[in-house]
């Protein structure tokens, strides 16, 4: 370390911090500096930075809100799509059911018509069968009366037409 603490050649250094002759100078320039910095900061820099930060915050908030809104829209769009899909499905089912019902009705009608025709035909056939049967029965009773007449005559009796007829009829019935 230096042994000459006070310096040499009249250049007394010591501690410059304690050289009070420079204090007014330093204090004056310090106050000037502080005032300048204070005004630059409070008039320009800090409001500007504060505004930028606030801007950014509001921008971010707005963007988040917009994103939320879009999300809601997407959700509602999806819901509408699903609704439309479900509607279409029920509509289709309805149409199918209607078509089915119509077909069924036609079918039923056709079946009924066919049934009716069949029934009519059957009735007709039955009627003609009955006529034929009646005709046959009449023919049988006539043949029987004729035979009975002939038998009576052949046996030597006098054939009373009414009696013979009654007898034949009762026998035919029995």
């Amino acid at each position: 370390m230096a042994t000459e603490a006070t310096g040499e050649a009249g250049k007394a250094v010591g501690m410059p911090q304690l050289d009070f002759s420079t204090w007014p100078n330093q204090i004056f320039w310090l106050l000037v500096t502080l005032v300048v910095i204070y005004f630059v900061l409070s008039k320009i820099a800090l409001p500007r930075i504060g505004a930028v930060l606030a801007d950014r915050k509001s921008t971010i908030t707005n963007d988040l809100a917009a994103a939320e809104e879009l999300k809601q829209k997407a959700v509602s769009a999806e819901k509408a799509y699903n609704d439309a899909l479900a509607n279409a499905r029920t509509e289709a089912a309805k149409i199918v059911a209607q078509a089915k019902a119509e077909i069924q009705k036609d079918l039923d009608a056709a079946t009924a018509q066919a049934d009716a025709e069949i029934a009519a035909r059957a009735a007709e056939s039955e009627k003609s069968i009955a006529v034929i049967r009646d005709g046959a029965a009449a023919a049988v009773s006539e043949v029987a009366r004729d035979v009975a007449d002939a038998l009576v005559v052949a046996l030597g009796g006098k054939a009373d037409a009414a009696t013979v007829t009654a007898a034949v009829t009762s026998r035919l019935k029995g």
Partner: protein
Amino acid sequence: MEGDIAEMGKFIGAGLATMGLGGAGIGVGHIAGNFLAGALRNPSAAPGQMANLFVGIAFAEALGIFSFLIALLLMFAV
């Protein structure tokens, strides 16, 4: 002769004054060590106490700086 003794006294005094820095070292180490011990125990609370850590270190260190200042004064100003 007299001046020489005064000179000697200044240097001895300055040397003695620097011992105060050891105390500041102990203090700062104590604060930092205790902070670390607490921070390891509860790491989640550590970041919130950083300001207190620095303030504590500053207070402890200031006293050491005082003794350093005394040493400087003895060396250069007295």
